[in-house]
């Protein structure tokens, strides 16, 4: 039962986290993985590293994000920073529209329950 729930959650969250990532990077600019996790945490969206890092990788492969290594001039270590790509910016409104439509539909479905 727990495994089935985990599978469902993983499937459900993938698209959702992708959307949140695109929106965040669009509004806040380039960020590295850990900064994104911390930001999501502040927004009460709990995403673990094992989910987000592969997802960022996949989004980059899709062409929705681009990444570059930010090497500090004085001290610190290189960080891989992600930003929304042109393709990502083009697709984002469609994804948002889709999400909102689904959300509305879901609300309707949920509310209609009482009518039966």
């Amino acid at each position, binding site marked *: 039962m727990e495994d089935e729930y985990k599978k469902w959650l993983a499937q459900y969250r993938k698209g959702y986290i992708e959307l949140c990532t695109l929106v965040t990077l669009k509004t806040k600019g380039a960020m590295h993985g850990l900064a994104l996790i911390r930001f999501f945490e502040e927004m009460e969206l709990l995403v673990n590293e094992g989910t987000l890092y592969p997802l960022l*990788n996949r989004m980059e492969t899709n062409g929705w994000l681009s990444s570059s290594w930010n090497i500090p001039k004085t001290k610190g270590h290189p960080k891989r920073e992600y930003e929304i790509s042109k393709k990502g910016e083009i697709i984002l409104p469609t994804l948002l529209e889709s999400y909102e439509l689904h959300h509305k539909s879901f609300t309707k479905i949920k509310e209609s329950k009482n009518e039966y």
Partner: protein
Amino acid sequence: MNTKSYIKQLKQHLLALDTTKSNEIIKEIESYIQESNASYETLVEKFGKPNELASNYLEDMPQATPKNNSFWKSTKKVMTIVASTILAIILITSYIVYEVTKDSFDYSKYDATTITSKVNDLWINIDGITEIRTEQAEVVFYWGENEKLKYNCKGMDYSQTGSVLTIKQAHCFIILPKQTTKITSFQADVILIAPKYNVNLDFRQSNVRIAEMGNSYNYNISAKQSKVENFNSKQSDTTINATVYQSKVKHYKY
């Protein structure tokens, strides 16, 4: 267990990915370790076990070069290099063999008169030769107008016994007079350039090439266990009688 072993295990599980992609992922996780000062246990807690994290990365990713393929790819590369090297050796060897064995010049461009200028070493004249025997020799025959046989040889042994000139293990140019009517050869390479008079040939285990030079000949060829190219026999004053055994007879081509 430490973070290095986590990275090592992750690398192993990411072998199916393209190397560049895999290196980027490893570098990013290493960057995370430095940033958060994570331990092995923290990594497992945050990212999952190395195999789990790898499978998350591999999911939906193009696995263009799975490790086995990578092995076959490198094997294929090695095989290609080996095959190319072998091919190159064969080509070079063939070229060397061709260069070494090919005629030193186009013999058919010369006749009994001009060959003596082309090969201007010592030419010997002998009278009364009716038969030539060649053994393990390379001999080019021309037909001349003179009464005497003329020859130019380089090699081991050439001797006269009565009316027979025997040539063994030598390379010779011979200009035959009308009276020399028989040529026998054993394991020899013989070239006949435009025979002018009737001749009886007896070839055994030999390679024979005949340059007709536009002349017509009346051929009587009797061959056993031999490869004989098609020679058109025509009405002619010159008859070539040939008995061929375990030999190759073909048209002369340079």
